């Protein structure tokens, strides 16, 4: 089996090399269409070979083939089937293979759709082949997933890290990788368009869906990672500003900036150079993230094992930067803006500030992530850049972004009158102020702690965003209803269908507001810890936990002990929780499995997570220790993600055919509802 996988990877490398070189030659020599076609087919064959190699690795995991070192180190006999499948991305070599597989799959779709614009697609295909060559070089020469065990083959594997044995292991990494890898496609089109001095903005239209889908995957991956940390790590938090978390956030920030600024290029022919740099930065940061995770250059709680592949990434990052810079400076005259800015209060200027803030946020995260290394190099002293730094610097930027999220959609292209801005903004502002006053009446004292101040501002700005989005839907729906006689809901659906991207985007904004509401509960978290014997009680907020029993269980993969706790609110029992602590046999490691109860039924809008951890047994007293957290509003974070993904999907639906209105000769008919 190992031989088959190994040869598949070797073939894939040869084919991707051919796809790159032949594709390049075909582009440079006119009349080489047949060579170009062979390059395209070679690119398709790369996907088949990498798929075969991945399949071999997964089958080897299921067959417990411990002669393959990778399987030995990341699996064991009794590992449940879903985690055996997930072995493919559990370790460094496998995850690089998975990267290559996803790139192959994206490349396959791109190459199959080449008739949309054969020449542009040929350029993009060459760029994808070049990136594929790099990853296949790594897989064949630096991080070989089919390396075999020398000497005696152990009877059982080392098993998967207990932290990774959680259902989200099966879905979080693929989502994140689909996001990371997916940004290669818009980058490939951008570089292709730049290299060939592509006329017009068609490449933007072609890549729009790619970018949105990729952004959706990355968003999903980041949030699933946060949920995983929340559900497994047992400290009641979901984001720790760890370098690896930051690595996923950086391309998301620039990708989000690109999704906004690209509209300037589509609608007004502006920001062409900036968009090129943004799409490159997003791709580059995705690779940088992969480098950070794998090189061990920056210490992180969930970095992969340190290895020597860091230098490979450094060279690749430098080479990609040089290539892009070469084409940019060679052809930048092609990227001149076509229009002028007519007014400061306009959609254009809001996008400029939006981009400034996104890029600033990205720079802050990048700077904070690298500063420990810079400090070590400059003053030979290690420093920590932890949550206090990011909370001080990034949160104000995030609040400004939230303000722009509320204001931006109310601004028209070219020019917005202050009168219309005031008219549209008045009631949402009153609503936001009302929320702020209500929070202060109910005891939030922003002068006591900066965290409360941030929470209050976040609540007010989130309300502002949510209300502006709702008012946009209602106002547009009323206009449609007035013209068509539909009810308001039908009119809103009609409205959305006329410009799906615009209204999908609004739903995403609404989701962001909901996420922020979920985050702002953090300063109000409570926690208690107690040794609990049978019948002992522990109170947290309005809830009381009563210990009913403790029990143990032996499973093939792990042994576990857990508590049975009744949860009361007042005199009424609302649920029973089973916090657990597992001991994984293969890896000889323990892992807590917290139990989380979202109190939707008890306090819907002000929902809290009752988060209970079985921490273990006090060796001195022999009594189990239970820790409970009460985390207000956290479930809204996950609800916000669902809304964001829903908005992204809504935005991907093709628009209905525009309604054209016959008008007098001098004025051209224009699509109704256009202009997001």
């Amino acid at each position, binding site marked *: 089996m190992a031989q088959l996988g190994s040869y598949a990877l070797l073939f894939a490398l040869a084919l991707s090399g051919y796809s790159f070189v032949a594709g390049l030659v075909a582009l440079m020599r006119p009349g080489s269409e047949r060579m170009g076609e062979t390059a395209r087919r070679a690119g398709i064959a790369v996907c088949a070979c990498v798929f075969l190699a991945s399949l071999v690795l997964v089958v080897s995991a299921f067959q417990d083939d411990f002669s393959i070192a990778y399987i030995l180190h990341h699996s064991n006999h009794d590992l449940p089937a879903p985690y055996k499948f997930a072995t493919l991305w559990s370790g460094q070599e496998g995850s690089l293979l998975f990267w290559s597989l996803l790139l192959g799959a994206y490349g396959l779709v791109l190459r199959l759709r080449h008739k949309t614009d054969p020449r542009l697609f040929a350029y993009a295909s060459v760029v994808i082949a070049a990136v594929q060559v790099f990853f296949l070089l790594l897989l064949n020469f630096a991080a070989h997933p089919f390396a075999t065990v020398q000497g005696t083959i152990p009877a059982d594997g080392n098993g998967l890290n207990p932290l990774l044995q959680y259902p989200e292991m099966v879905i979080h990494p693929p989502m994140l990788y689909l996001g990371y890898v997916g940004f290669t496609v818009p980058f490939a089109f951008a570089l292709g368009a730049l290299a060939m001095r592509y006329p017009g903005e068609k490449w933007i239209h072609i890549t729009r869906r790619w970018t949105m889908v990729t952004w959706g995957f990355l968003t999903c991956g980041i949030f699933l990672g946060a949920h995983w940390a929340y559900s497994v790590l047992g400290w009641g938090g979901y984001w720790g500003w760890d370098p690896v978390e930051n690595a996923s956030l950086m391309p998301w920030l620039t990708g989000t900036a690109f999704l906004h600024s690209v509209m300037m290029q589509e609608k007004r022919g502006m920001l062409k150079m900036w968009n090129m740099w943004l799409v490159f930065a997003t791709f580059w940061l995705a690779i940088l993230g992969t480098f950070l995770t794998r090189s061990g250059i920056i210490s992180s709680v969930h970095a992969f094992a340190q290895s020597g592949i860091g230098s490979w990434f450094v060279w690749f990052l430098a080479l990609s930067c040089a290539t892009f810079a070469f084409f940019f400076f060679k052809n930048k005259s092609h990227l001149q803006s076509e229009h002028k800015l007519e007014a400061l209060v306009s959609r254009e200027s809001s996008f400029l500030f939006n981009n400034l803030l996104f890029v600033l946020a990205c720079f802050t995260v990048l700077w904070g992530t690298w500063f420990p290394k810079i*400090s070590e190099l400059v003053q030979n002293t290690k420093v920590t850049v932890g949550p206090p730094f990011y909370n001080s610097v990034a949160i104000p930027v995030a609040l400004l972004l939230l303000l722009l999220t509320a204001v931006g959609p109310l601004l028209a292209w070219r020019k917005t009158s202050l009168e219309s801005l005031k008219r549209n903004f008045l009631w949402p502002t009153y609503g936001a102020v009302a929320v702020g006053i209500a929070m202060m009446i109910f005891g939030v004292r922003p002068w006591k702690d900066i965290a409360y101040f941030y929470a209050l501002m976040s609540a007010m700005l989130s309300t502002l965003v949510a209300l502006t989005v709702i008012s946009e839907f209602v106002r547009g729906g009323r206009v449609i209803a007035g013209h068509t006689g539909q009810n308001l809901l039908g009119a809103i659906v009609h409205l959305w269908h006329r410009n799906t991207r615009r209204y999908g985007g609004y739903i995403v904004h609404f989701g962001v507001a909901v996420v922020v509401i979920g985050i702002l509960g953090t300063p109000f978290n409570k926690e208690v810890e107690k040794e609990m014997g049978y019948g002992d009680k522990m109170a947290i907020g309005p809830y009381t936990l009563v210990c009913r029993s403790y029990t143990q269980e032996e499973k093939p993969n792990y042994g576990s002990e857990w508590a049975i706790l009744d949860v009361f609110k007042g005199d009424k029992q609302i649920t029973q929780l089973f916090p657990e602590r597992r001991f994984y046999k293969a890896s000889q490691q323990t892992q807590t499995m917290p139990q989380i109860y979202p109190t939707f039924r008890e306090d819907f809008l002000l929902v809290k997570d009752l988060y209970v951890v079985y921490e273990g047994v006090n060796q001195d007293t022999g009594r189990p220790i239970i820790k409970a957290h009460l985390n207000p509003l956290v479930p809204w974070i996950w609800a916000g993600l669902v809304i964001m993904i829903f908005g992204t999907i809504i935005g991907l639906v093709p628009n209905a055919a525009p309604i054209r209105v016959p008008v007098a000769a001098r004025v051209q008919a224009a699509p109704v509802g256009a202009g997001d």
Partner: protein
Amino acid sequence: MISAVKARVKRALQLAALSLALLLLLGAGDSGSRFNELGHRMMCVCGCSQILLECNHVGCKYSDRMRDELMAAVDRGDSDDLTLQAFVQKYGTTVIAAPTNKGFNRVAWVMPFLALGLGLTTVVFIVRAWKNRPTPALADGIKPLRGSELEQFRAQAQKETEL
């Protein structure tokens, strides 16, 4: 009469908003209890990469001891600087959760604001350059609308779409 009431309501809401903003500004500097504040300025050194007061590992060899030491320092009345210095000497510089505002570490704090200043300057420069750019030429036979005629079309579009 109704418009006068409306104006008063509007004025009252504006006053409420202003009062709230002032209240927020007044309160922005307060910092809470010292133990809590200092405990959130340090990391647990067990390798978990968590803030000292948030480390929750059962049997963690460091966090309980460090919390006790911090409590003792606060009870003794040691200053913030003295307490943090004592922790640095005992556990190394990485115990401080964020770079200090001294020496080269100050660069960590300055750079994001420098970037903001640079970014804002660039945006202002771009906006000015774009505003001063000559209007692109139109195709033959098309005259750009100006003045009252343009305003008339804008008003018509607004009236028809109400957007």
